[in-house]
């Protein structure tokens, strides 16, 4: 249980669309008034619920924390369904209910070469991770994506660390991404570096497979459907490494994760 989590109402400072696909904006940076949190970690998330959900949309939506400073909290989201559609309709001055910071964030070792692997929206937690890292020269990133690069808040990262950007538009691009991921994970695990990954399930499964086979020190941030975000509904569970076909063992992604070491889970 996160000791400092709170439920509070925050004011929307602005909501900024990023990029567009077929003339439509589906990626948004949501800037909120600063919550009264004593501390937070990159990789943690919030449950966010605007009044417009009413009774029709019961669950708040889990959004990864992009970054926070002494003035505001930034979340970044993609419109994928009815909940995020309504989030995208928020306007300046409205308030939203926010529970957080929730879950366990990414591990950080200041002096260790650290490889960040982001697929699409998986870039979100690394914005704050890179910004707050005391020795950013130890960090580098591979970013794989399909929608245009303008959909993602990548500029602040490129100012601080080297980022290999690989866009997947035709089937051959995927092979290139997989090759690059394999090579880089191999390099970092050979020097006992730290490897952190976040992205969609197929991307994470790839990282998991490479990481396990190379014995890498790797953490992955999982994304699952959540109702509560506080460990009660048991909906967001993921299988632990101790699971067997006869006796499945699940843990909550929201409270035991969302960031796990790869030897804790099976993907």
């Amino acid at each position, binding site marked *: *249980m*996160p*000791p*400092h*989590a*709170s*439920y509070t109402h925050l004011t929307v400072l602005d909501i900024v669309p990023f990029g567009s696909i077929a003339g439509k904006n589906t990626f948004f940076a949501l800037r909120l008034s600063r919550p009264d949190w004593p501390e937070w970690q990159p990789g943690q998330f919030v449950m966010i*619920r605007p009044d417009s959900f009413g*009774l*029709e*949309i*019961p*669950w*708040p939506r889990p959004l990864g924390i992009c970054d926070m400073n002494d003035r505001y909290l930034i979340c970044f989201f993609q419109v994928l369904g009815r*909940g995020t559609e309504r989030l995208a309709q928020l306007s300046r001055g409205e308030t939203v*209910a926010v*529970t957080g910071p929730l879950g366990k964030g990414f591990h950080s070792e200041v002096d260790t070469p650290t490889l960040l692997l982001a697929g699409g929206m998986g870039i979100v937690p690394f914005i704050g991770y890179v910004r707050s890292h005391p020795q950013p020269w130890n960090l580098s990133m591979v970013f794989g994506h399909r929608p245009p690069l303008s959909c993602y808040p990548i500029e602040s990262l490129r100012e601080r660390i080297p980022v290999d950007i690989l866009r997947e538009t035709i089937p051959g691009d995927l092979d290139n991404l997989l090759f690059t991921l394999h090579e880089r994970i191999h390099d970092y695990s050979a020097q006992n570096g730290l490897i952190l990954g976040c992205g969609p399930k197929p991307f994470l499964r790839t990282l998991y497979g490479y990481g396990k086979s190379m014995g890498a020190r790797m953490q992955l941030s999982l994304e*699952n*459907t959540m*109702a*509560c975000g*506080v*460990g*009660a*509904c*048991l*909906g*967001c*569970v*993921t299988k632990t490494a101790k*699971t067997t076909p006869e*006796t*499945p*063992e*699940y843990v909550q992604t929201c*409270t035991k994760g969302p960031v796990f070491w790869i030897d804790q889970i099976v993907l």
Partner: protein
Amino acid sequence: MDLSVTLKGQSHTLSLKNPILTASGTFGYGLEFAPYGDLASLGGFIVKGLSLKPRGGNPTPRIVETTAGMLNAVGLQNDGVEYFCQTTLPKLPSAKTNVICNIYAGTVEDFGALATRLDGEDGVAAIEVNISCPNVRMGGVLFGQDPALAHQVTALVRKNAPKKFLIVKLSPNVTDIALIAKQVEAAGADAISCINTVLGMSIDYKTRRPRLANIVGGLSGPAIKPIALRCVWQVAKACSIPVIGVGGITTAEDVVEFLIAGAHAVQIGTANFMNPQTSFALVPQLDTLLGSLGVSSVASIRGTLKLD
């Protein structure tokens, strides 16, 4: 305002400082919600269903959001009664509020064994018997759909847990809920919770697949409130023991509707997911609402449905 409630059962009495309880499966073991409110301010909380042995639960996906509700097929994932008694229970504020244990088993005998185990735990104020979970194979909702089995389970738990206030949680997935309620009352229950989730289903039309791994699951949330109100009203008319209303409550107005239908107390379920402070906030909100209605106590508005 007197918010206190006395649940006067057949062999035991349970005192609540207010009628707000939390529903099993929606509030963890209480501790998950401690950052968001004072657990001791609640009338009590009902912990996630306990089984005799640890249970891994169902495969995922286990939950789906629906219009004004949600489906779940969690399959009673829990660490088992022994782990709960040794590790979790000592951390719960049993001296300050009612810690109620929800129990589930696949056989009548296992229900009896759970009752025996919990009867010796002073920190447990009451037992709520779940004869209505729709998500577990090997029986599951069966106990709550068969009047004779419902009687048998209730009678055995009553016999094996002589020290505990005994609540039985009923399923709405039956033809005549009052019939089951009367059997449970005849078998010695002190109170009845109604209702558990309503069996439902969700399909993804694009993939033509069910959205739950379990195919079907239990519907909860505001969508089922009218069903719950109807069941509370029918059971309260049919039985003399107290009824605890549960199903889709999100506001103090909802609470008062259940009281008018005949409920002595209520449980807050899915609304805990909407906002982790819901149950805590409802206590003062109910106080204010009852005051504005010119009512001096919870007891004085109970069962006051006007039919003329």
